[in-house]
């Protein structure tokens, strides 16, 4: 069953009609962990805000749990959970007070749905009388997730939940999401971090308000059409310059401690590139055949 259906959704802002979301369509199955992956300004937040009925679309339609986002906005508001990108709880209320407040606003109690948040809440419970404003980034996210979950939402919208959170807390956060999936809660999550994409069931790569590709992360990676080589040399900056000049190369970019060089499928062997680089006076050259990541796929789609 499809929990979220989006059809040709469009959103423009201001008098200049800046297009933030451009004819976007996708659907999310019940109980799925769906990721919207894209850089800042790609339109992720606008899509989330339209789906949570905070913004009206300028074109197209969408439904959440069968409720239309324009007509049945009240029904959506009481059934979904939403965690905005910016930490949006009451900073001057304690953990416990925040949680209690949101439970009551949704007409429920902490006790009633404690099983949903238990795993997360026990981690922040020792600080329950501390004010939310005084919590660390990771703890704030956990509290925000608890508050979004406390009314047992059917669908959970998490807008960049891991932005500004340390790597350990990020990893923990994704583990929590996996456990929530087991409770049959549909989860839509957006993130600018490509490495988090592989943790989703399905992802939509989004850029400039348009969806570039929707598939399982593995399929996207496996569908990478070109030969990808990871290159390292003592002089990284010169390496990039030299790579750029290679006549057969399709694209090259820095990727962590390596540079990724893209060639048409089967057109280049690591050894051949290595000798080419040696010939251009680079030392300490190391060339490996690399497996494409989501980021490589994303860059490919952008070109």
């Amino acid at each position, binding site marked *: 069953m499809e929990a979220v259906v989006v059809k040709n959704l469009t959103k423009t802002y201001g008098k200049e009609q800046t297009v933030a979301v451009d004819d976007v369509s996708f659907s999310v199955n019940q109980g799925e962990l769906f990721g919207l992956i894209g850089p800042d300004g790609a339109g992720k937040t606008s899509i989330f805000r339209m789906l949570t009925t905070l913004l009206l679309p300028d074109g197209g339609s969408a439904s959440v749990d069968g409720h239309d986002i324009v007509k049945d906005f009240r029904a959506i508001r009481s059934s979904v959970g939403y965690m905005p990108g910016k930490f949006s*709880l009451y900073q001057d209320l304690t953990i416990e007070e925040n949680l209690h407040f949101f439970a009551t606003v949704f007409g429920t109690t902490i006790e009633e749905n404690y099983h949903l948040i238990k795993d997360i809440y026990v981690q922040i419970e020792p600080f329950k009388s501390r004010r939310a404003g005084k919590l660390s980034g990771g703890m704030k996210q956990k509290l925000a997730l608890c508050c979004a979950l406390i009314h047992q939402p059917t669908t959970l919208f998490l807008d960049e939940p891991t932005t500004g959170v340390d790597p350990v807390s990020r990893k923990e956060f994704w583990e929590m999401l996996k456990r929530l999936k087991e409770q049959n809660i549909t989860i839509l999550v957006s993130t600018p971090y490509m490495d988090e994409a592989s943790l989703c069931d399905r992802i939509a790569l989004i850029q400039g308000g348009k969806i570039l590709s929707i598939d399982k992360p593995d399929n996207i990676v496996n569908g990478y059409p070109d030969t990808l080589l990871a290159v390292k040399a003592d002089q990284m900056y010169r390496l990039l310059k030299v790579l750029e000049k290679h006549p057969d190369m399709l694209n090259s970019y820095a990727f962590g401690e390596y540079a990724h060089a893209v060639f048409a499928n089967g057109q280049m062997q690591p050894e051949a590139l290595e000798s080419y680089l040696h010939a251009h006076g680079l030392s300490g050259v190391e060339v490996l055949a690399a497996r494409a990541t989501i980021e490589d796929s994303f860059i490919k789609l952008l070109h």
Partner: protein
Amino acid sequence: MKQFLAFVTKEFYHVLRDQRTLLILFGMPVAQILIFGFALTNEVKDSEILVVDYAKDNASQELLTKIGSSRYFKIRQAALNHKEILSTFRQGKIKAVVVFPVNFNEDLLHHNKAQIQVIADATDVNTANMITNYLSSIIMDYQNQVNKTLKMPYRITPEVRMLYNPQLKGAHGFVPGVMALVLMLVSVMMTAISIVREKETGTMEILLVSPFKPVLVIFAKAFPYLALSLVNVVAILLLSVFVLDLPVKGSVPLLFAESTLFIITCLALGIFISIKTETQQIAMLISLMGMLLPTMMFSGFLFPIENMPVPLQIISNIVPSKWFYIIVKSIMIKGLGISMLWKETLILLGMTVFLLMVSLKSFKIRLQ
């Protein structure tokens, strides 16, 4: 109902945990009452006046003692000519000069009327008015006293009557005025930032994606400030009764009921501002500048509305504090009841309902 209570509790936490808010909420009214009550009083005490007595007869001496025995004046005597009087004024110490003509007593005896010249330093119009009024009433008093024993009454000065406030006590006018001003400022400002704060911190975004209703938010936001403002009313009244010696002549419950109504009007106004603005700073600015000035000018508490040009008089009608000022003055000082104040009460009630309706209408249920 549970939702409402949770919301109200949350609002109370916001207020009580923010020391600056608390300071404004309770510090300002007390400070204002004391400042206006004591420091800025326009009561005339120990004003130095110069008496030039050309007559030096029985009547002038009697009248002089009478003036001197009042606590309002300190008398200096000197025999000066007209020019010298003017130069003494320029030194600025003398507030007024009283001149007895040469034949003061004789004029009284033979013509049954005499003149006394009172010259006041009118650079401060209010003080000058007050001093001349005081002097006139003292002279009147003397005249009455003398006339009891005479068949042909003496006439010295025109009659001056001070209704309700015979000694022109400063606090009389100020307490209702400060009450209107302070309640207006505190209630409007506090609520004005309350909703816009949620917009600014982003909590409104989560609140919107929840089953709450705008009515609930508006009332829950207003409730704590209503309670706290009522505490303020109690504080102001206690100060005015025990510190400024100004008792409440009329019914205290009525005064509280009217204050509650006025506070709700102000809260509705604050909520309206809060809904219409996007940042706390703008909301604060609008409520401070937009409320302070009209309240000061148009409530009739510093400047009499009757003396204003007609367009301004018309504008003054939309200032809620004008009506509240009239109500408080009538209850506290004149001791009037609701039968005399139903019109003002209805106007405030109308304003409140209107503001609440408009607020509810313009409450954005979405982000844009």
